């Protein structure tokens, strides 16, 4: 069993077998990061560039650590601006970097489709670390990894994604991944933050938080950005919290063995209260730890795949 593509651009179209392969591989790497010496020689001699056109702490550090623990040579590059109007084009930037003989590129960018665009510009393996509001596949993989570790499966679990569905790449990748794995998926958010025809994702759609989370196993809460309020998509943070905030009271609606997730960074007191974020059922920090293992698995599985194999 191998991954079909030599890139990880998104989870749309990825099969249950492929996702299972990544998650199974991540299990063995998860064990490595618990060791006193957290390093294996797997990617020795492989050069990875982390190209982060958007600010990120956790995803970038997670990738950097994953690369170092696999003994890859890696460098992170955080351009001051992603605007093509200022200076060098993205295509020129990546072609210049590739001229330094690299093997893999991890890219985050505010524009949808940039990871695909890079595959057309360079020969390296491309890993999407978030493109616009499109996909964030490693986040969804680590979410699924975390859920699977707790329940031993993903199939038939009820997973509810709450918040800014319209602008969230985490939501989209989770929808594709969870559906491929046979989970039952629902999304919930204010009507203004639900994209048009969202039901065509073939998920359950709710605008009422209590109804959405009733009987859920997992609630994955998305960050709500202040800019959305300024853009008139909801009237105030206070009202958002009242309608969609994950509070202790709402926990009673969930299934017994429920799980609370958040991809971070959290707005405590807005989309999630302190007691929920820090409660026993919260796996938010576990998600972060697992992220490294999942990224190690992705780097490992893609690293051997060269252009001519396709």
């Amino acid at each position, binding site marked *: 069993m191998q991954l079909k593509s030599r890139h990880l651009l998104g989870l749309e179209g990825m099969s249950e077998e492929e996702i299972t392969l990544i998650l199974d591989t991540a299990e063995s790497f998860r064990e490595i990061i618990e060791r006193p010496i957290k390093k294996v020689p797997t990617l020795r001699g492989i050069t990875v560039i982390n190209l982060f056109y958007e600010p990120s702490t956790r995803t970038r550090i997670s990738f950097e650590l994953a690369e170092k623990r696999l003994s890859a040579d890696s460098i992170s590059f955080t351009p001051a601006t992603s605007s093509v109007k200022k200076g060098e084009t*993205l295509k020129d930037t990546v072609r210049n970097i590739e001229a330094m003989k690299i093997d893999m590129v991890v890219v985050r960018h505010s524009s949808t489709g940039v990871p695909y665009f890079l595959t*057309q510009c360079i020969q390296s393996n491309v890993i999407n670390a978030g493109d616009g509001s499109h996909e964030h596949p490693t986040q969804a993989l680590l979410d699924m990894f975390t859920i699977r570790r707790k329940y031993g499966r993903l199939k038939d679990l009820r997973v509810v994604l709450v918040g800014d569905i*319209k602008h969230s790449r985490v939501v989209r990748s989770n929808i594709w991944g969870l559906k491929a794995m046979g989970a039952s998926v629902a999304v919930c958010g204010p009507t203004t933050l639900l994209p*048009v*025809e969202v039901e065509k994702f073939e998920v359950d759609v709710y605008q009422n938080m209590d109804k959405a989370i009733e009987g859920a196993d997992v609630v994955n809460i998305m960050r709500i950005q202040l800019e959305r309020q300024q853009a008139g998509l909801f009237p105030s943070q206070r009202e958002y919290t009242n309608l969609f905030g994950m509070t202790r009271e709402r926990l009673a609606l969930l299934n017994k063995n429920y799980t609370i997730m958040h991809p971070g960074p959290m707005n405590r007191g807005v989309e999630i209260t302190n007691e929920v974020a820090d409660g026993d059922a919260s796996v938010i920090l576990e998600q972060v730890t697992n992220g490294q293992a999942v990224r190690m698995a992705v780097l490992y599985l893609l690293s051997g795949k060269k252009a001519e194999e396709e």
Partner: protein
Amino acid sequence: MKISEFDLVIKNGLVIDPAIGFGNEADIFIKEGKIARVGKDGGSKKDSANIPPDKIIDASGKLVVPGLIDMHVHLREPGREDEETIITGCQAAAAGGFTSVCCMPNTTPTIDNQETVKFVLSRAEMADANVYVVGAITKGIKGEELAEIGDLVNAGAVAISDDGNYLQNPELMRRALEYAQMFNIPIISHAEDRFLSASGVMNESYQSTRLGLKGSPAVAEEIAVLRDIRLCAFTGGRVHIAHISTAGAVRAVRLAKAEGINVTAEVTPHHFSLTDEEIGKEFNTSLRVNPPVRTQKDVETVIEGLLDGTIDCISSDHAPHAEEEKDVEFDQAPPGLIGLETTLGLVKTKLIDRGYLSWADALSKMTINPARILKLPGGTLEIGKKADITIIDPEKKWTVRRENFRSKSKNSPFIGWKLSGRIGFTILNGRVVYRA
């Protein structure tokens, strides 16, 4: 040896002139750049007998039609001569069978004054197509104050438009519609409410939802079309809706026409050939266009609009862009695609071959209809008129190739497409300006 009185003869073609309902095999005789006679050789055999072979085009199996008219192109000159010039744009026009094009005023500087109109027309003197100028409605197409419309018309402008920008202020649009009546010219409206379209880079639909790209909703166009229709009715002015693209906008124009309101509309080949499902495949920036390509339902409805006459014209909205500006992230690319050289093939392949339109109906939307809307001299093959003639090889199959474009820019989403129907000859003023 007696020298023929004719300069060029097009023999044995199927002549289609929708303006007069003509569709028969005939010969066309051209003298001094004008159409001298249309008809079967018949009694005049001796005329063609004296014509040297190099002055005869054998159009057997071909369609001989009035030179095509594209009332919506961007020639980029002055300002972006790296993308297109009046000369290269007209070469592209000739290769696409167009003998007349109307150029939009969103150049740098904008065509909002007499001098720029004169500049464009002087550059066009040596070009391979007739160029008609669409002047700006407002100074700098900024939507703030009216341009000197009288001056523009005096210099030769045939219509006014702030194309690319919607004239968002309805009061100003009202005044423009009133003022333009003095010159009997239409206002061409790029109907797009800017508040609603926000910074959308594709149609708002499941596809924008799937891709997480900012969507521009159909209602942004529909509200703009409805507003212009009501202002048109209110002022008695004349509006031409550019590049109509949504089902709701087509219905609005249909109802307005039934009410007797003076509105006309055009559609581009990309809006009847493409849907937003194409975008996610390769993020091809040639598919980034404004208005965006819509859904299958919209495509079906604009085709219905072509069928029932709601949509009067087929225009390319030829919009050249530099390769370096298009070879970027999808949402960073400027909107627009080139269309002059693929319009006829798409009309044949997508509309005629599928049985939606006859050749005569399709051609009327590319000849006499735009001529009437803008009061242009061409669009028909009447005797005594300028010999602007297009000869079409109707069943010729061809593949759109990047290297074959005459346009200076190559931003076409149709590269690699197999089309049917190709231009054989384009004749401007009796002179062959393009030959396949």
